[in-house]
């Protein structure tokens, strides 16, 4: 047995000869198979040899024939032609795969060594156009819905009349509604600009485009072919006007949404300030740094989760929320107990001292974490966008708006229904009277300061999603937050809410007309003028508390 194997492994002259014969026979057999399959001719196999002629006209017709053949190899052939990988030699057509191996275009089988010289099929601009159209129509029939959708969008843009038959076929067999819509849009786009389209078809196309109703549809409707009959022109004009007013409407809605979004960011940043400023009349210039601390807490939580428990990443923000509240809140209480407590009744000095604290906190964070931006990730459930009308709302913005209002509601409830809230309100309205009634005002000050700072920390968690987490994060919000609080009025959370949302929306509505910077300047001036009219804000406290 062992001897036999050895004999088989050891090449003897006879055996080598025999192997060569075997190989030749095999090759002939493969060749025969190939020919046999070529003999089973369809439109694909008939069209293929035309490439071998290497004339532009023949190539062009071959592309059309191949593309409409329905053969699964046809897409490979057209792609290979586009990339210069379609080779001809000895009357045969080959595809050089991206991996480098050579296959027979007719059968798709691997072709060992090329017989003789191979050269690529030449293309010119006309051929290239046919290639693009063919590819569009080929992917229109792809099994993958995403590819079909992409192809439909491509056809919508190219508006190639040659694709029309394939498009009809694709529409007829399309099962998914949104792909079908895209395909019908593409058909409408082609029909509208097609010279010899019937008026009926055009009117239907106009109707489809009107339903689509975006900027691109508008462009198509306003560029009708010159030979369009008057009723089509009129219908198109009407549809375009409809789209225009719809677009204006959605643009306004979008601006308002951006304004609410900006307003909720301002609300988050300012609401903690409203509490500290309201209760103690203390200008806390380090408030922005509390926001920054919250953002860095989020960063730390995410880092820990990444290294220890990657599965929890989706919940990282929820975990960061209480931690950020605790971190910023305890820093706030610490500041109150060590510095601000000694400065009551001297608001201007408090302003300076807290500014100093903000410098120290900024530099501290810069020393520990470095001056560069830190990467805070977005959990999967917050990425993506919701499409309404022509605008798309990103989930993280929606989350921040919802979150800001939730924080506002919770704070409102805390202030209204808890003992702490009662005391804070009492101290805000009349410090001395509250003290006389047995409220330990200094303790309430510390707690209120902690609460305000903690809320700033939570704001930091949210802002880490839309802003750069850097030591300067807080600086960017401090002036805006003061504007909100001063505009809204001190000692009233509703004032802060109205102030924040008003400023946010006003800012975004001004932006398209005045530009971002001028809009902001105009708003600052408006607030300065407003304070002259109502020095204590929109929702001012009334009565004796004002002079206290």
């Amino acid at each position, binding site marked *: 047995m062992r001897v036999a194997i050895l004999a088989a492994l050891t090449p003897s002259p006879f055996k080598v000869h025999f192997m060569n014969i075997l190989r030749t026979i095999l090759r002939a057999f493969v060749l025969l198979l190939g020919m046999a399959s070529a003999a089973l001719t369809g439109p694909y196999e008939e069209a293929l040899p035309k490439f071998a002629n290497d004339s532009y006209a023949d190539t062009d017709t071959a592309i059309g024939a191949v593309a409409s053949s329905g053969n699964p190899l046809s897409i490979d052939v057209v792609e290979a032609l586009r990339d210069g990988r379609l080779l001809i030699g000895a009357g045969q057509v080959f595809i050089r795969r991206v991996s480098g191996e050579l296959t027979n275009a007719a059968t798709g089988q691997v072709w060992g060594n090329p017989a003789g010289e191979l050269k690529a099929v030449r293309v010119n601009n006309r051929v290239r156009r046919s290639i693009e159209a063919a590819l569009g129509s080929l992917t229109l029939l792809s099994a993958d819905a995403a590819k079909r959708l992409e192809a439909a969008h491509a056809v919508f843009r190219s508006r190639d009349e040659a694709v029309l038959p394939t498009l009809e076929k694709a529409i007829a067999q399309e099962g998914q509604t949104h792909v079908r819509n895209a395909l019908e849009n593409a058909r409408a786009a082609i029909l509208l600009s097609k010279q010899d389209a019937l008026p009926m078809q055009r009117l239907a196309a106009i109707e489809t485009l009107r339903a689509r109703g975006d900027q691109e549809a508008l462009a198509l409707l306003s560029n009708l072919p010159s030979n369009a009959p008057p009723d089509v022109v009129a219908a198109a004009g009407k549809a375009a006007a409809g789209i225009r007013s719809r677009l204006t409407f959605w643009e306004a809605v979008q601006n308002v949404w951006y304004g609410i979004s900006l307003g909720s960011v301002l609300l988050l940043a300012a609401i903690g300030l409203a509490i500290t400023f309201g209760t103690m009349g203390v200008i806390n210039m380090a408030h922005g740094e509390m926001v920054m601390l919250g953002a860095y807490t989020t960063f730390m939580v995410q880092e820990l989760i990444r290294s220890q428990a990657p599965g929890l990443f989706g919940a990282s923000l929820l975990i960061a929320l209480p931690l950020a509240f605790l971190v910023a809140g305890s820093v706030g209480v610490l500041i109150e107990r060590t510095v601000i407590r000694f400065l009551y009744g001297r608001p*201007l000095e*408090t302003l300076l001292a807290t500014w100093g*604290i903000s410098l120290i906190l900024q530099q501290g964070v810069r020393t520990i974490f470095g001056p560069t931006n830190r990467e805070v990730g977005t959990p999967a459930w917050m990425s993506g966008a919701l499409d309404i009308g022509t605008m798309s709302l990103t989930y993280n913005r929606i989350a921040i708006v919802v979150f800001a209002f939730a924080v506002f509601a919770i704070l409102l409830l805390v202030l209204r229904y808890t003992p702490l809230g009662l005391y804070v309100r009492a101290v805000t309205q009349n410090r001395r009277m509250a003290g006389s009634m047995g409220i330990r005002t200094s303790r309430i000050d510390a707690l209120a300061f902690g609460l305000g700072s903690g809320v700033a920390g939570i704001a930091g968690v949210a802002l880490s999603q839309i802003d750069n987490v850097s030591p300067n994060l807080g600086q960017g919000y401090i002036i805006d937050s003061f504007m909100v609080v001063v505009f809204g009025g001190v000692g009233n959370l509703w004032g802060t809410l109205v102030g924040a949302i008003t400023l946010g929306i006003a800012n975004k509505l001004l932006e398209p007309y005045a530009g971002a910077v001028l809009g902001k300047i105009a708003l600052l001036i408006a607030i*300065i003028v407003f304070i002259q009219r109502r020095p204590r804000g929109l929702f001012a406290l009334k009565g004796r508390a004002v002079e206290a």
Partner: protein
Amino acid sequence: MRTHSLFDRQTNLVLSLLAAAAILVPAMNGLAPPGSALHLSDHLVPLLGKYVCFALLALSVDLIWGFCGILSLGHGAFFALGGYAMGMYLMRQIGPRGVYGDPILPDFMVFLNWKELPWFWYGFDWFPFAALMVLLVPGALALVFGWFAFRSRVTGVYFSIITQAMTFALMLAFFRNDMGLGGNNGLTDFKEILGFPVQAGSTRIALYVLSVLALAGGYLLCRWVAGSTFGKVLVAVRDAESRTRFLGYRVEHYKLAVFALSAMLAGIAGALYVPQVGIINPSEFAPANSIEVVIWVAVGGRGTLAGPIVGALLVNAGKTWFTAALPEFWLFALGSLFVFVTLFMPRGILGAARDLWERSSQKLRARRSPQPVTHAAE
């Protein structure tokens, strides 16, 4: 008030120290041979000049904060406006020597493809006009802003916040290229001032001496204002605004006048600052700068007039040293200074020194004469 004379002991001391600074620095720079221990190298002259300008700015803040209780967190804006007025004059002096060689338009306008000089640049090639603008522009802004603010009785922290908003808005505006004032880069590449090359050592000495003189003049002016009846009303406004109003004084007029005066002083400081540092850009409007000025005043001693000068010089010398030796720690030091001064030295260095002086002199007097002495002035 111990004395009603303008030239009391403190004034004399300040003036003689300033005179010494005005004489010693040029002497040490020009007469002492390089390498000797007394020699002051060339690059230190504009640095000292810069400090002196800051001292004048601090003085202007003290005039309103220390004597009238108005805490402006936007005084850097008046400083920068004065600086821009001077910068525009210096830009026009460049003439055809700019990179693009345009005889009229400054380089940045050629770069932005502007065809003609904006109207507000007219007249700035003439020094007296520019000098007038150095006073008028900050003064006018202060008048308008103050008129609105004081008339509707915006006081305390509210006023501080809107001054901050004012300087922030100005910063945003000056960052715009459309503003016609150099945008982001500001005004720079100055060649000469009144025919003297800006970079030359002798010009720098002259500018330095001028700054010291301006500081001395500013100090005397503030001293005079503080000692006058007008100044007494200001102090009354600071300590009891409502009561002063009920006594029949038009509080807002007093506030407005002193606010505008202070803004003009700040403008002069800015105008002297620009040729010495060679550039003015919108970052001078940054709210943080204005807040820093307030700490100079607080460190030196608010309401003392000499204190802000001491504070500005000390803090800026500290800044220069720290940012070179321990750049990481400068903000820690500055931040701690803010906290320390407000908590433990509410009257600043000068206030603390004066307390010490009075206590020791009281002790001395008590030792000399056993019976208690009542102060005539108290």
